[in-house]
């Protein structure tokens, strides 16, 4: 199961419970401001929660879950038909509750009042621990996203200012913190982005577009992609196929750069992965090895391998063997092979695979891009492979 699906399951359970409580008479009935309520499905029986606190957490959970659901559909290429019916119903139900909360001026005012009481953690002192940094950044990010959603009420401007100031302070505090705290925090944020699919090409068009391009979560350094030009220039691809290959390589580079090679592979081989324009490959006109889906032959093939073990499902020898089988089966269609690995045995490649790949190169015009995962495992670079002249 992909990490994103696991998170969707977990959050759906919580959102479903909160939605049951949010549909109670007690939540919506008129009454005094800043009152408490019961929410037995959410916080247990005989336990009170502030109505404003419940509403704020509901909005945040709904935004997180609904946003992730939309990104999950796009990333895996599933669409409505691939989405569990229970999630579709929850999406509609929880969306209606959220809209009701956002339209309730009194409730919005209560939430805004509570915000004025919250101070940023640690003031301006550098973060001493990764936990503190990580939590502070996510808290600031949550407030930015909530503020962007709550664009109603006379105090919205003040709320937005508070949220932006918190985000800027927190980001600056991270910059002032020790290098090892910064690096470790960014690493955990990378995992967070993967778990919630808040990836650059998905987030720019998501429900969080209202952030106007100013998200509070810093990103790790983007992968250096100069190698793509070099790779394509030396690939012997004709201009048309080079044009088709470029967006695939750029998307792969973005994906591996943002989530790391291991997460990239886990998602690529997940049973949910269909592919498509928003997938980690940037297209649905590509075959994938390994894959559980049987599709026709496409112009491009992406093969992913990890390790060198002969018995490993993702081991270099087994993946390479599958590539060769694919090239035989799709001799007339596949013209571009992108092979990504994290280990390279030059002698083994020459003795076991080069001749067959060279045959497809010379006879059918297949072109190969061999890419190696670097250190850290968020970078890739081309491997120079010469398949020789025609015999």
């Amino acid at each position, binding site marked *: 199961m992909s990490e994103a699906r696991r*998170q969707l399951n*977990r*959050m759906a359970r*919580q959102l479903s419970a909160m939605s049951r409580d949010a549909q109670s008479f007690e939540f919506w009935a008129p009454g005094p401001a800043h009152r*408490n309520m019961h*929410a037995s499905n*959410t*916080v*247990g029986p005989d*336990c*009170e*929660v*502030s109505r404003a*606190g*419940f509403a704020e*957490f509901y909005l*945040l959970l709904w935004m997180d879950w609904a946003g992730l659901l939309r990104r999950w559909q796009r990333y895996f290429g599933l669409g409505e038909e691939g989405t569990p019916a229970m999630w579709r119903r929850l999406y509609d139900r929880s969306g209606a509750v959220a809209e009701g909360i956002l339209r309730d001026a009194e409730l919005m005012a209560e939430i805004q009042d509570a915000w004025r*009481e*919250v*101070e940023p*953690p*640690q003031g301006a002192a550098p973060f001493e*621990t*990764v*936990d*503190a940094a*990580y*939590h*502070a950044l*996510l808290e600031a990010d949550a407030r930015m996203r909530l503020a962007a959603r709550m664009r109603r009420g006379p105090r919205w401007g003040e709320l937005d200012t508070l949220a932006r100031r918190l985000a800027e302070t927190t980001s600056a505090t991270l910059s002032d913190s020790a290098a*090892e705290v910064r690096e*470790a925090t960014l690493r*955990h*944020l990378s*995992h*967070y982005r993967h*778990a*919630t699919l808040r990836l650059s090409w998905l987030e720019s068009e998501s429900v969080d577009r209202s952030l106007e391009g100013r998200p509070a979560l810093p990103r790790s350094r983007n992968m250096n992609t100069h190698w793509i030009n070099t790779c394509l220039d030396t690939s012997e691809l004709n201009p048309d196929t080079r044009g088709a290959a470029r967006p695939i390589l750029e998307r792969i580079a973005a994906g591996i750069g943002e989530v790391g090679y291991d997460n990239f592979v886990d998602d690529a081989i997940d049973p949910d992965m269909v592919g498509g324009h928003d997938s980690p490959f940037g297209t649905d006109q590509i075959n994938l090895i390994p894959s559980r889906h049987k599709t026709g032959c496409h112009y491009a093939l992406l093969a992913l391998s990890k390790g060198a073990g002969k018995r490993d499902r993702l081991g270099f020898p087994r993946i390479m063997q599958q590539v060769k089988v694919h090239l035989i089966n799709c001799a007339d269609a596949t013209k571009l092979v992108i092979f990504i690995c994290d280990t390279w045995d030059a002698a083994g490649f020459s003795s076991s695979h080069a001749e067959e790949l060279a045959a497809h190169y010379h006879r059918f015009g297949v072109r190969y891009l061999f890419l190696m995962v670097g250190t850290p495992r968020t970078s890739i670079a081309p491997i120079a492979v010469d398949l020789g002249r025609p015999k």
Partner: protein
Amino acid sequence: MPPAWSKKNLTRHRNKHGACFEDLLGIGGRVITEREYADRAQRAIDKSWMEYQAEKAHTYDDEFDPPRLTHVDDELVIAITDLPRAQMITSFHEHFDRPHGVEPGPRATVGDRKLRYRQQVLWDDQGRMIRNLRVAKDV
């Protein structure tokens, strides 16, 4: 049989986290005893509303601690034990990287505290601050 503290661990954690417990227990003008600290930690287990198993990430490498059980009570006193619940690892008061009493604020209800803590566990799971999370009890 309640989980046991090693002498060294109890002293160390009482010294580190005792001040918050003094406030929660209304102890003024003296330092909380190890007995009081241990009793309050045990109460967090006995009255927990949330209990989960997870492995906590090391700070600066890709390694994780062995799996442990975390118990959380209504005041957000946390008690962490080994899986068989034979050993107490630590106990502290969670106040979200802010001074004691600030977050959640003094007006926060038990329900507010539960929501806040649940949010943090979700973020920790998403960011691999913890892994292999299994929630055994949640309200």
